[in-house]
């Protein structure tokens, strides 16, 4: 088995500065070498574990309260992780006890919802640091907040039901994104104007890949504050906001993400 010769590694190492793609892999026959193979297996194992982790909600609830927000612990209607993965519709609805817990009679500019989505570790690691970069500025701008929620086995659309019950003008769902091989803890934020059940993905805006190795907290916070401000003044979110606000920041609408039903699907 021929291991890397010196000229090989230097050339490919230089090329790898331009891309995180797995290029110039060392080979054994037509296959890759053992170290390359096991590095891939490790990345996949980390992504799989991230998908199947359950949310540890207590520290998040403490963290929300420590930041001056009321905080509710809620669950979706999915009975377990397997059902949650197979039935996205159940992950978008609250279970009966959570509905009772929600009550009514709230109100405010923004409902903040933390949900595990497809990576509990993403929301556990990045949601509170992101809020630390966002909340002081929003308070300076006189934003008001409904109680926040930490939701187990929640999909993006569960923010619609929660936001509607809270009578929130906007909902911000901070949620773990589907792990990639090199990004098991990527956080997404979805904004929805006047959340209510039945909102479409094209009516939301999304920030993606929030984590120190991707979009950092400060950059994400700046974009989020800009988006929230624009949404409040234009009274909308979604494709229309993306189109109008395109000059200011590089935005995607949630529709762009959902539209990737297949590679290249546009």
């Amino acid at each position, binding site marked *: 088995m021929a291991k890397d010769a010196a000229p090989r590694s230097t050339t490919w190492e230089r090329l790898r500065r*331009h891309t995180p793609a797995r290029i110039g892999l060392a080979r054994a026959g037509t296959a890759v070498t053992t170290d390359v193979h096991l590095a891939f297996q490790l990345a996949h194992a980390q992504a799989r574990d991230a998908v199947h982790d359950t949310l540890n909600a207590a520290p998040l609830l403490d963290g929300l309260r420590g930041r001056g927000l009321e905080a509710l612990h809620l669950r979706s209607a999915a009975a377990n992780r397997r059902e949650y993965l197979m039935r996205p519709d159940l992950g978008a609805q609250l279970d009966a006890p959570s509905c009772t817990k929600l009550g009514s009679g709230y109100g405010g500019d923004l409902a903040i919802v933390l949900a595990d989505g*497809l990576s509990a570790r993403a929301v556990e690691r990045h949601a509170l640091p992101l809020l630390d970069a966002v909340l002081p500025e929003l308070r300076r701008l006189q934003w008001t907040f409904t109680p926040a929620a930490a939701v187990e086995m929640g999909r993006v659309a569960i923010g619609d039901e929660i936001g509607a019950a809270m009578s929130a003008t906007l909902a911000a769902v901070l949620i773990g994104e589907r792990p990639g091989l090199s990004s098991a803890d990527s956080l997404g934020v979805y904004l929805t104007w006047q959340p209510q059940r039945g909102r479409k993905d094209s009516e939301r805006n999304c920030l993606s890949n929030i984590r120190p190795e991707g979009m950092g907290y400060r950059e994400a916070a700046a974009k989020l504050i800009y988006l929230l401000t624009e949404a409040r003044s234009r009274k909308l979110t979604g494709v229309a906001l993306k189109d109008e606000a395109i000059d200011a920041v590089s935005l995607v609408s949630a529709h762009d993400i959902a539209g990737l039903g297949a590679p290249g699907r546009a």
Partner: protein
Amino acid sequence: MYATAIGGTHYTFADLRELLAKASPLRSGDALAGIIAADATERVAAQMTLADVPLRTFLAEAITPYEDDEVTRLIIDTHDANAFMPVSHLTVGGLRDWLLSDAATSAILATLAPGLTPEMAAAVAKISRLQDLITIATKCKITTRFRGTLGLPGRLSARLQPNHPTDDTKGILASIIDGLLLGSGDAVIGINPASDSPERCYELLRLMDDLRLRLAIPTQSCALTHVTTTLALIERGAPVDLVFQSIAGTENANRSFGIDLALLRESHTAALALKRGAFGNDSDNVMYFETGQGSALSAGAHHNCDQQTLEARAYAVARAFRPLLVNTVVGFIGPEYLFDGKQITRAGLEDHFCGKLLGLPMGCDVCYTNHAEADQDDMDGLLTLLATAGVTFVMGVPGADDIMLNYQSTSFHDVLAVRELLGLRPAPEFEAWLNDMGLMKDGRSLRANDKPGELPAPFAPLLAEA
């Protein structure tokens, strides 16, 4: 109404749509849609009932309304009654037996294709084992051409997929070079742009076309962006070889992708007018379509039809435009549609079978996401099965890890391995180019990326630039 009795229990199925759905081997997307058989016995009862349905019934009973669905109208209006003649007396089960028999030769299957509807092909798939799906598909020889000839016996082509999360041109170029050195790229060099900006797509098309001309590579390139973006790029003079579009099996699902048949016709005409192929009037294969089971349900446009039948109907859309390539992106959609490796494997072989039977150059993105119950072992299995079934092309992704779309596919190395394992070669024009470049000899890859210091002369400056 369709009915059968098994051991004193009567099973009834209201219409062909329900019968097809309940006969479909279990998968999560049909369960999500609430249209699956109640239990395993009812599923087989549906399969037995379906096996006895005359093929003529499929011409009389549409599964989505003719008046409301232009895909149904396309299927019915373009059905070739003469081509259908040799099997017109058969049932679904009879067609399966006939397809497996020696009577169904490659030549006869080629003339039969326009006589079959997608629903007939889907029905046979539902009562077939994987072995049947493979052995019948190997008899379907579908050849298409642009700058090379794809689909010839003994050949396996690969789309080189050099995606990058920010469309960095140097990063993309590095991935393309790696793939070419390992023998991928004869089906197409195809980038999924991260940005939907037309300027960026123009830049990527020029990058690929410049490289092709510089190295005289007998292949084609494609930026996998929406058909309207490609049409605008054609008007601006961009080097567009192939028009890409995702398509589905109902009019409403296609509308959710922002397309209809008229728009596809317009883009087909525009691409043909460019005359960029290498075979003059013979190179009229200028479309690249992608599909995948579950896309119609995902768009809320499934009409309570099962996802495998609707996938086959997408091939009716595809074949109206004589595509160079059709790619079923089988595991991308997620576990709510195809739950695990078993479901993905069956779906990939069903799609390949139906596409080939309907006359299409079928490839498969053998793939999965990280929330599906699947791993690289499942991909090895499906890739090997598809290669034995004569799949036209598969994906070549650096290290099988698509860093832009965040899913796992097959790698340049996987393509090499299965080619050498089964004695398959790249498209002949591309193989000749690999030989000229010193990258291949006697049908075996020389794996030149091991020694950049000894690269073929044309590649050295490229590496220096990247």
